[in-house]
C-alpha cells in the first residue's frame, strides 16, 4: 500500500533536441582511444547498457524470480511487496534526512557581489562557456542578449557555440546576428553520436579556459555567476572540482505544470542538494550551470556521449574519483517545460538517464562502495535508481491501495502480512503527507508564496512523474539509446534580452 511521492527529479538540462538512434560506432576524428577523446573507457560509459557481468546477474535474478513465483507464488509476491515497502520507507527516510541536513548545514557557497567584483581582471582565470544548440534558431537572439549580461573580462572569456554540422537552420540564424567578439562557433563534425555531451566534448577539446561551464542558449545566468564561481574555486580546496549553481525558472507562473516544476527545483536546490552535500553523497549534477575545473574534467574523461543524463553521470564520476562538488549561491533562470506531453518526454529521458547512470556505476559495486562509502552508495542508489524505479512502481501500489479501500479483497490482504502492512500504511499515509508538507516548507524557505497551490496539489505531479517513469523503464529495455526530443520556446515569455544588440 505504500506509495510515495516519486522523488525529486534529476536536475538535468534541456538538451539540444534530437531524436535519432545513436549508432554504436565511434565518431571519427577523436584522436585518442576510448569512448571520448579524454580516455573514457567503455566500462565507464553507457555505450552498452549492461556489461556482460550485469547481463548474467540480470538473467540469474530473473530465473530465481520466475522459479520462486512458479513454486511459491504467494511467498514470492509477499517478498516483493516487502522489499518494495522497505525501499519506499528508506526513500522517505533518506529524503527527510536530506531535508534535515539541508536546513541545518552550511548550505551553498556564498560569494557576495562585492567579493565577486573585487577580483582584478588579471587575477581571474580564463573561462570557457560551452553553449550547445541543435535546431534552435529561435533562441540565438536570446543567447546574444544573455551573453551580453555576463560580467567577465573580455580577454578572459571564451564562448563556444556548439552547432551540429547539418543544423542548417541554426547556422543560418547565427549568420544573421552579429555575434560578440568572444563567441566562436564550432561545428561538431557529422558522422557519429549526436548528443549534447558529444558536442560538449568537442568543445572541451578546443577550450582554452582554466574553468569550464555549460549554458543552454536560452539560459539567463546571474550576471556575476562566472566571477562568483571563479572566487569560489580560489577559496575552495583543490579537490572541489565542480560548483553547481542553482537553477530556477523564468516562466514558473505560466501554468500549474511550471509551478510544480519550479517547486520541485526549489526543494531540490534549497533542501535536497545541500543535504546530499552534507551527507557526503555523490551529487547528480544539473544539466547546466555546473562550473568545472577544465583539467580535472579532462582527467575524468569528459562527458559520456552515450548517457542521456551525462551530467548526473559526471557527478558520480567526480565522487568516485574522491573529488568534490559544492553548491554555489547563484541562480540561472531556465525555461520550465510547460506542456504536458513535452514534460513527460523530457522527464522520461531524465529517468532513463538516471537508470543508465546507476547501471554504469554498478558494474563494479564493491569498488564503488570502497570509494564513496556505504552511506554514499545507499544515498546514490536511493536517489538515482530509487527515484525512477519507485515512481514507476507507484501506479501498482496506488492501484492496490484503491482496491483495498474499496473492496478489501482477501488476495490483496494476503500480500500484506502485519509486519509489512503497518509500515506500508505508515509510509502511504504519513510519507505522502510528509512529502507534501516538505514542499510547503521548501516554498516557504524560498519565500515562494506563489508556489503554495503547487505545494498542495503536488500529488497530481507525482502521477505525471509515474507516467514518465514507466515510459523510461520501458524505453530503457526497448530503446536504450533513444533520445527524447524536448521542444523549447513554449514559454511565451519574451526573454528580456531578446534581440538586444550584443556588446561586450
Amino acid at each position, binding site marked *: 500500500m505504500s506509495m510515495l511521492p516519486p522523488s525529486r527529479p534529476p536536475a538535468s538540462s534541456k538538451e539540444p533536441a534530437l531524436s535519432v538512434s545513436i549508432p554504436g560506432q565511434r565518431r571519427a576524428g577523436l584522436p585518442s582511444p576510448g569512448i571520448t577523446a579524454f580516455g573514457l573507457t567503455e566500462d565507464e560509459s553507457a555505450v552498452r547498457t549492461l556489461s556482460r557481468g550485469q547481463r548474467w546477474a540480470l538473467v540469474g535474478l530473473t530465473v530465481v524470480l520466475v522459479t520462486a513465483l512458479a513454486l511459491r507464488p504467494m511467498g514470492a509476491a509477499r517478498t516483493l511487496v516487502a522489499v518494495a515497502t522497505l525501499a519506499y520507507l528508506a526513500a522517505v527516510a533518506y529524503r527527510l534526512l536530506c*531535508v*534535515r541536513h539541508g536546513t541545518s548545514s552550511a548550505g551553498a557557497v556564498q560569494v557576495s557581489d562585492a567579493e565577486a567584483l573585487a577580483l582584478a581582471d588579471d587575477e581571474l582565470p580564463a573561462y570557457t562557456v560551452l553553449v550547445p544548440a541543435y535546431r534552435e534558431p529561435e533562441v540565438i537572439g536570446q543567447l546574444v542578449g544573455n551573453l551580453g549580461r555576463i560580467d567577465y573580462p573580455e580577454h578572459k572569456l571564451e564562448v563556444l557555440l556548439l552547432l551540429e554540422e547539418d543544423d542548417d537552420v541554426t547556422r543560418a540564424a547565427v549568420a544573421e546576428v552579429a555575434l560578440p567578439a568572444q563567441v566562436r562557433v564550432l561545428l561538431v563534425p557529422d558522422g557519429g553520436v549526436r548528443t549534447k555531451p558529444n558536442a560538449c566534448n568537442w568543445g572541451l577539446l578546443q577550450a582554452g579556459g582554466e574553468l569550464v561551464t555549460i549554458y543552454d542558449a536560452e539560459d539567463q545566468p546571474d550576471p556575476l555567476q562566472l566571477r562568483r564561481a571563479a572566487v569560489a574555486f580560489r577559496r575552495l580546496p583543490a579537490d572541489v572540482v565542480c560548483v553547481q549553481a542553482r537553477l530556477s525558472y523564468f516562466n514558473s507562473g505560466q501554468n500549474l505544470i511550471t509551478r510544480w516544476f519550479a517547486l520541485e527545483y526549489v526543494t531540490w536546490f534549497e533542501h535536497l542538494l545541500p543535504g546530499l552535500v552534507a551527507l557526503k553523497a555523490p551529487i547528480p549534477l544539473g544539466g547546466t550551470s555546473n562550473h568545472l575545473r577544465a583539467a580535472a574534467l579532462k582527467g575524468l574523461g569528459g562527458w559520456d556521449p552515450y548517457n542521456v543524463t551525462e551530467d548526473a553521470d559526471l557527478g558520480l564520476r567526480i565522487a568516485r574519483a574522491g573529488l568534490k562538488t559544492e553548491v554555489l549561491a547563484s541562480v540561472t533562470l531556465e525555461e520550465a517545460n510547460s506542456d504536458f506531453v513535452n514534460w513527460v518526454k523530457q522527464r522520461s529521458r531524465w529517468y532513463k538517464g538516471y537508470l543508465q547512470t546507476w547501471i554504469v556505476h554498478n558494474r563494479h559495486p564493491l569498488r564503488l562502495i570502497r570509494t564513496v562509502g556505504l552511506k554514499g552508495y545507499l544515498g546514490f542508489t536511493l536517489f538515482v535508481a530509487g527515484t525512477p524505479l519507485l515512481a514507476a512502481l507507484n501506479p501498482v501500489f496506488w492501484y492496490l491501495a484503491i482496491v483495498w479501500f474499496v473492496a478489501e479483497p482477501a488476495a490483496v490482504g494476503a500480500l500484506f502480512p502485519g509486519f509489512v502492512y503497518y509500515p506500508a500504511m505508515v509510509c502511504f499515509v504519513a510519507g505522502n503527507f510528509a512529502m507534501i508538507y516538505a514542499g510547503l*516548507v521548501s516554498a516557504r524557505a524560498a519565500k515562494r508564496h506563489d508556489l503554495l497551490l503547487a505545494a498542495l496539489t503536488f500529488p497530481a505531479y507525482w502521477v505525471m512523474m509515474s507516467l514518465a517513469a514507466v515510459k523510461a523503464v520501458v524505453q530503457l529495455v526497448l530503446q536504450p539509446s533513444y533520445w527524447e526530443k524536448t521542444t523549447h520556446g513554449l514559454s511565451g515569455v519574451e526573454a528580456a534580452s531578446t534581440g538586444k544588440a550584443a556588446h561586450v
Partner: protein
Amino acid sequence: MSETLTRSAEDGPAVLRRDTLEVRRSPAPGAEPSPSAEPRSGRPSRREPLALWTAFFAAYAGLGAVLVLHFDSIVLDAMSRVANGSLVVSSADPHLAAVGFVWNPLPSLAAIPLLLCKGVFPELATKAFAGNLLSAACMAACVAVLAGLLRDAGLRRGSRLALAVAFGLTPMIAYYGANGMSEAYLLLAQLVALRALLRWSRTRHWPALVTVGFALGVGYLARYEAAVSAAAASALVAVTVFLTAEGSASARRRAALTDTLLVAAPVGFVVALWAGLSWLIVGEPFAQFSSAYGNSSQVAQQGADAEAAFSLDRVATSTVQLLALQPLLALLVVVSLVIGVRRRQLALLAPSVLLVPVLGFELLAYLTATTFGWLRFYIATIPLAFVLAGLLLAQVRRQPRSAEHRQGYARPARLAVAGLVVAAVVAPFGTQAMAVESDEVAAEEAPQFDLVFHPETAAAERMERRFENEREIAAYLDAQQLPDQSVLVDNATGYAIVLASKRPHQFMVTTDRQFPEALRTLGANDVQFVLAVPNEQLGRSNAVNVAYPSFFADGAGIGTLAREWAANSDQPAWRLYAVK
C-alpha cells in the same frame, strides 16, 4: 523533523530578484538570530532541562507509585487508556485497530512498550501503572519546557527556575503528573507549541511554526482540545502575517496562507487521519462525540439528575473551578493583554490566544451539558498563569536603569507587577488544596484524596474497594483454565477485569473482529460465559445489554447464572452467565 527544521536559522535562502537578476542572501544558515531579537540569559545548555526533567520525573513517578501501589488510588480513565493499549498486544485477536476510536490513541499506544514488560512488573498492567510512568514523563517534560520558555523570554536563572519548580509542585500539576491521565500529554503539546509560538512572535523565525504545528498535531493524538489551540494559533499567525507582511494585499494574503498552513496542516492531517481511520473501521468519524461510549452519551446516561444547560449551578461550579485553579488568571490575562497591545508585543498576547480558547471551549461544552464539569478540563489555566507571570516579570526586569525613560516602567508599576506575579505563584497552592477537598468542585479528585487523607470516610472506603470485584472475577476465571475467546465481555465496562487477568486471551472483547458475530449467535458458538452489568446508567451502552436488554436480569433465555458480584464501590455489579 520539526525540531530540526526549527534549528535552521533565519537563513533567507537565495532570493532571486527578477528585475535585477541579483541574488540576495541573508546571513549564513545556522546563524542564531541577533541577541536583541531574542533575549536569552545564560548559555543554552541541555543540563538544566535534563536535570529538571529527571528530578520531576522521579518525583511524579514516585508519587504515582505510592498512590497506585500503596493506596490503590487508580483513576478510571487512566486505566481504560492502558487497557486499550493492552488489547493491541495481548488479546486473542491482537491488531492495531483494537486500540479503539472513542478515545485518542496516543496514551494507549505509548503504553504498549511498557506493557510488554508486565512479565517482570505485573502492576504495569494490572494496576495500569504504565500510564502513571507516562504521565510522569510528560509532566516532567512540561516543567523543563516551561523553564526553557522562560529562558527564551529573558528571565534569569533564579527566577525562571523558581517559576518552573513552583509550576511543577502545584497540587493539580503534581497530581496529574502522577495519576496516569492524558492531561500531561495535552499540556506538554501546548507548552511546546507555546514556546515555539513565542519564539516566532519575537523573531518571526518561520520554522518555529513547523514546531507549533507538529506539537499540536501530536497533542491531538492525545486530546481533542489540541485542535482548539491549533485553530487559535493558526488565526493568530494568519492575522499577524497578513497585517505585517510586505507587498500587495494578495501577496500578503498568500504569505499569510503559507505560514498559517505550516501550523494548520499537521494538525489538519492528524484530525483527518484519525477521523478517516475511525470512519473506516468503526463507521463514525468522531466517535468520542457520536459513539454510545463517548462523552456526550455518558453525560446523557448518567445525567438523570443533571442540571439544565446554562443553569445557574453550572455557571457557579465552573466559576469556582476556574478560580480554584488560579484565582488571579483573569487579572494576569488582562494585564498582559493591555501591556502587549500598548507596547505592541505579540509575545504577550500569544499565550492567551493559544490557551484561553481551550478554556472557553471546555466551559461552553460544560455549560451546554455536553460534557462533565470536571476540574481537570480547565487545567490549562495553570501553565497559562505561570507563562504570563514569567513574561510580565521579564517585562519589568528587562529595562536597565540607563534605558530610555519612556521605555521603562515606573517603580510603582514594577512593584505592582512583581506583587501580582508572586501572588499568582503562591495562591494556587492554597486554592487548589482547598478545591480537592470538595466533592462539588473536584468531583473526580476529592474521593481519591479522601482515600489518602481521610481513609475512614464512607467515600474513601468505596474508593478503596474500586476494582476489588474486577480483580476477583479475573482470578476466578483464570483458575478455570478456559480456552481462548470463551468469555464474552464488553471491554468498555470490563477493562479492569481484562487488565487484571493473567490469561487475557480467554476473553472475547468488543475489539475482537469476531465479537459482533459471537454476540449475535450467543449460545450457538464457542463462547462459554458472558460477563454482564445492569442495564442502567453507563451499562446501557454495554454491547451485551444493547443486544439483549434483559441479559443481566435473566440471561435473556440464553444464559444461566453462574456467579454474581454485588456492587460495592462506584463500579457496577457483575453477573457471570454460562451460555453453554
